[in-house]
């Protein structure tokens, strides 16, 4: 899909939001196409920059697309519209996934993705809210985004506003104590207008999560902190949409959705390959990777 078509698609979605809530075949197909396009942009971005986190960006593309192209109430043509829902990318190293999604949803020109990690670019190695339209908060030092999202949700609650807050956290950054401080705070202060998605891709910088620092039983951990827990296949867009819908019903607790994902999803030689945690593809593999993503 080219840029114009994607923006048109996005605008139509906003227009027909209510009628599309049933997750029509057309909607799911459109989101899949958007996810493919974002994935391909991630490969190009990290390859151009010769740096960046490929694996953990590809693992969360489907979630980001489901959020930005459907779930979030936002206006890409006016990213700072006060009535918008908020999204915090706590795993800031997945910046390529966020930038690709923001660009394709219309926050800034798709062309600009080429400048990722370059000098004078608005697209920093990790998200910088002062530079990039649509980025809500600077992240990158892991474990800090959830607290911010909780604070946002508390602010909306205090102000009596209906804005929803979403945060994507990596499974690796669940090692950080601040995540669990924030989890306690949210349930203690009865903050229910927040949805956290865990990108459970089972990998972190030094290897498999359960080898580096085991975090299971994860669902039970969140539940014991007072959160309502859902689980979903983080690469099945229809299921992601469904679980987001279900999670909005009868809110009495903060909500977490554990999304089972695969690092490097969609590229056979990157999937589950820990070498590509913080590394781009060698140039000679880029074309093949883009072709494979196109067949997702």
């Amino acid at each position, binding site marked *: 899909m080219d840029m114009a078509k994607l923006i048109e698609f996005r605008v139509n979605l906003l227009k027909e939001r209510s009628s599309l809530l049933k997750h029509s075949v057309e909607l799911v197909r459109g989101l899949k196409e958007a996810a493919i396009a974002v994935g391909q942009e991630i490969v190009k971005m990290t390859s151009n920059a010769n740096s960046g986190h490929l694996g953990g960006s590809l693992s969360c593309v489907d979630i980001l697309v489901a959020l930005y192209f459907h779930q979030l109430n936002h206006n890409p043509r006016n990213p700072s519209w006060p009535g918008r829902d*908020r999204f915090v990318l706590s795993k800031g190293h997945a910046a390529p996934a966020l930038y690709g999604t923001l660009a394709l949803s219309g926050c800034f020109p798709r062309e600009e993705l080429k400048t990722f990690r370059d000098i004078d670019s608005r697209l920093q190695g990790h998200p*910088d*809210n*002062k530079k990039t339209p649509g980025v*809500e*908060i*600077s*992240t*990158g*030092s892991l474990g*800090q*985004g*959830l*607290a*911010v*999202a*909780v*604070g*946002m*949700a*508390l*602010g*909306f609650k*205090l*102000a009596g*506003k209906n*804005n929803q807050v979403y945060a994507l956290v990596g499974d690796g950054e669940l090692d950080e*104590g*601040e995540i669990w*401080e*924030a989890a*306690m*705070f949210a349930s*203690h*202060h009865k903050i229910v207008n927040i949805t956290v998605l865990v990108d459970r891709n089972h990998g972190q910088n030094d290897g498999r999560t359960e080898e580096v620092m085991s975090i299971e039983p994860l669902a039970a951990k969140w539940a014991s902190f007072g959160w309502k827990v859902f689980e979903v296949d983080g690469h099945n867009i229809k299921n992601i949409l469904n679980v987001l819908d279900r999670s909005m019903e009868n809110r009495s607790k903060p909500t977490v959705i554990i999304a089972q994902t695969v690092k490097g999803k969609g590229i056979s030689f990157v999937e589950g390959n820990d070498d590509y945690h913080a590394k781009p593809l060698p140039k000679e593999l880029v074309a093949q990777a883009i072709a494979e993503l196109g067949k997702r």
Partner: protein
Amino acid sequence: MKNTINSPQLMSTRDAYGQVLVEIGKEQKNIVVLNADLSQSTRTSLFAETFPERFFNAGIAEQNMMGVAAGLATTGFIPVVSTLAIFAAGRAYDQVRNTIVHSGLNVKIVATHSGITMGKDGSSHQSIEDIALMRVIPDMTVIVPADALETKKALRATIEYKGPVYIRLGRPEIPVVTDEESPFVIGKADILRKGNDLSIIACGIMVFQALKAADVLVSQGIKARVINMHTIKPLDLEILFNAAKETGAILTAEDHSIIGGLGSAVLEALACKEPRPPVYRIGVRDVFGESGEPDDLIRKYGLSWKDIVKAAKEVLSLKEG
């Protein structure tokens, strides 16, 4: 200790903070206060009693408290965050640096119990590094009020200002040395004593000691200019360069390590100035403190007016030499 300062009033800066926070809270409904299980100590309990719906206890979790404050700031509230200085600047440093200040958020961090004069809890709780830690962050503003009166004015100015600010307060009761009338402007220091023999540049609790020392020096024929450098960042370069030019000798005084604080900021600013005046620094000399009464600690660690008088003469001799 004979009080030669014309003000018998004693009050801690944290008490003044607790009071003015309630006053401001009445005027501005967008003020919210966060604290980490130290509401009595930080005096935010007064706000909590008056505005329970706008007060949030984070428990003993300072890192999350800073993050929640950041989130609140993005929704239009003005969060005022309080804990002891050792935790605000130390424990939660990364959250202050990367989440609050990097994102340019309007969060006010008011840290109490700063310096060695926090007293009997001992060196684990005595923050002698917080000015250094906070002032090295780009875009951060760092304020150290000299007394209770100035604390109230500083908090008002801080709320008016848009952007992150660190205010450093103390635990002990100290004399009021500033007056009601003089305005408080962030980044604009005040001359409390005129003189051209040397300049004593002090902040916080040490302004009182500097004034006492100046009184003693006057009786010995030495006229010291006393500057209350209440804003460490941005530093008032105009008042500093004038002091360098007009008095030719500088002494800094702070309840903080001599590394990285006010003294360092002054030296950095003067580094390329010609002629460069001799600079002596009064402060904690790169050691951990210990338990004790504030007055005893001030004496033992070389922060008293007597130490200032002695150092003043030394720096003067360098000037004359």
